[in-house]
């Protein structure tokens, strides 16, 4: 049965997350032995009483600096991949990514506005830019949905995608105009757009976590509905599904997850389109498989990409979007060539 989530794949996914977690914690300006990292993590689990081998300074690096960043990478990667997978199903379009429907452009405009017009400390504030990006992203999606669903007589998914293109173009135009008028802030805005996982402790993780939990729960609950939707709206309706309701629920949940991820990390490209695709090619086309595995592998992939981004040219950091594309693209081409050819 192809639609079943095989334990083998789940275990592989969990292992990938574990490897990304331990590697992300062990490597950096100060390298820590992976085994000590594991025992130190267990040491912090209440009730286990595992003694740690790390001195207090290393323990602080691990728990206060690296752990929040790695966890943030896992969460952002999970959200982007899950949203991308959900959109690919909702729109029956393999090119769908989590930034469509205006999420990216709306977040960009929100962040740009607050960097230019907000207080001078906007960029260093842990709340202002994420809040503006989050609001901009959701506002753009809401406008897209209203335009795409209300304006057109033919309420197809294509009109929704086209409305998204129009909204994105409008937001980008405004953003470009603002930047051109305030060239001194271009550098700051650009660094936000490129995406990065910098943390001021656990703050960003706590911002993202509730949205990640809600978005994951809602999207995963619709996994079978997405499989039914793959036969088209009319046939899905004749099977007892309510296609437009399913689509609305999924778009809201996925947009919420993607917007929250973008708010704390900027626009990290490629993860949301490549991970669900690679999973589809390797593990099968059912969304019951694609969605949970995208969650696991997306998180692991981004956490590992971040590890490379901050270690390869240390102490300088490469923009993480560069890493995801540089390593993701060749890997993806490899998967495209070999994936599923042997499968029945």
């Amino acid at each position: 049965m192809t639609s079943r989530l095989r334990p083998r794949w789940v275990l592989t996914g969990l292992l990938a997350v574990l490897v990304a977690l331990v590697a992300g914690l062990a490597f950096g300006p100060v390298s820590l032995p992976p085994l000590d990292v594991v025992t130190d993590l267990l040491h912090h689990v209440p009730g286990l009483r595992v003694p740690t081998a790390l001195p207090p300074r290393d323990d602080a690096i691990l728990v206060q600096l690296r752990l929040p960043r790695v966890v943030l990478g896992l969460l952002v990667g999970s959200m982007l991949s899950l949203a991308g997978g959900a959109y690919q199903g909702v729109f029956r379009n393999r090119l769908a990514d989590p930034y469509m429907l205006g999420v990216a452009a709306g977040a960009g405009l929100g962040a740009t506005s607050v960097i230019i017009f907000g207080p001078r400390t906007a960029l260093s504030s842990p709340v202002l830019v994420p809040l503006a990006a989050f609001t901009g992203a959701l506002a753009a999606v809401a406008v897209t949905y209203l335009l795409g669903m209300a304006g057109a007589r033919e309420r197809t998914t294509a009109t929704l995608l086209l409305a998204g293109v129009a909204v994105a173009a409008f937001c980008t135009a405004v953003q470009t105009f603002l930047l051109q008028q305030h060239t001194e802030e271009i550098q700051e805005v650009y660094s936000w757009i490129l995406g990065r996982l910098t943390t001021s402790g656990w703050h960003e993780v706590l911002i993202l976590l509730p949205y990640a939990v809600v978005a994951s729960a809602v999207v995963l609950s619709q996994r079978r509905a997405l499989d039914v939707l793959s036969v088209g709206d009319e046939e899905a309706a004749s099977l007892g599904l309510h296609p437009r309701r399913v689509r609305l629920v999924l778009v809201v949940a996925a947009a919420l997850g993607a917007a929250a991820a973008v708010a704390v990390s900027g626009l990290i490209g490629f993860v949301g389109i490549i991970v669900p695709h690679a999973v589809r090619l390797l593990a099968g086309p059912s969304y019951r498989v694609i969605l949970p595995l995208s969650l696991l592998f997306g998180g692991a992939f981004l956490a590992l990409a971040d590890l490379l981004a901050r270690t390869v040219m240390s102490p300088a950091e490469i923009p993480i979007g560069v890493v995801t594309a540089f390593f993701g693209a060749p890997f993806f081409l490899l998967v495209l060539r070999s994936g599923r050819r042997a499968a029945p």
Partner: protein
Amino acid sequence: MTGPSLVAARGIGVRVGAARLLGDVDLDVPEGGWLTVIGPNGAGKSTLLRALAGLVPHEGTVTVAGEQVDRLHRRQRARLIALVPQNPVVPPGMSVLDYTLLGRTPYIAPLAVEGAADLAAAHAVLDRLDLTGFADRTLDTLSGGERQRVYLARALAQGARLLLLDEPTSALDIGHQQDVLELVDELRTAEHAPLTVLATMHELSVAGEYADRILLLAAGSVVATGTPDEVLTEELLAHHYRARVRVVPGERGPLVVPVRRR
């Protein structure tokens, strides 16, 4: 075949904007009956099926097994009426078993996935249609005839009492056409869970051989309804199809033979 009426439609009309696709259609199909809707391209055959299935807004009322279809929840409706469209969407990479399991959707709670009972039901259907050996094959690797059987399998998995078939044979050669129609007839007359069939068709001789009643639709209205002998006449077909045909008596119904105009 004159059991109690399973399907009763009264005054069915469909409009899209100012265009009237279907107007004032009445029809009845007895339980276990087979009604085939014929008519030239654009007569409204597919629209009629979609209206009966509750998939397009329409005027008039449709009653199936005593239930008024528009008042049913869409899940209840899907347990009563199964539709095989003319060109079903083939999801890439989906296996025959998974496709058949889609038919269990109206029995599966909205947030759940299928359970053992659904799996058993799907396997029973595959077994009944001789598709067990294809369970793990993907739809895109099947031939046209095999695929048509898989579409039927999904519809049967719905456990519906009314089967709507929109041109079930248009993509098949005559041998496979007979395979599919004999199969549908077998399902219709089966002792356990018999089906009532409402199909649209272009092949008129075939339509007459399998259906016990024929409804001729032209420009959205019913122009004739009755037994195959009553509807498949040279005058009616010449007039409404604007075709030159000869109708000759056959073993199981009239045979319609096209003749060159000049």
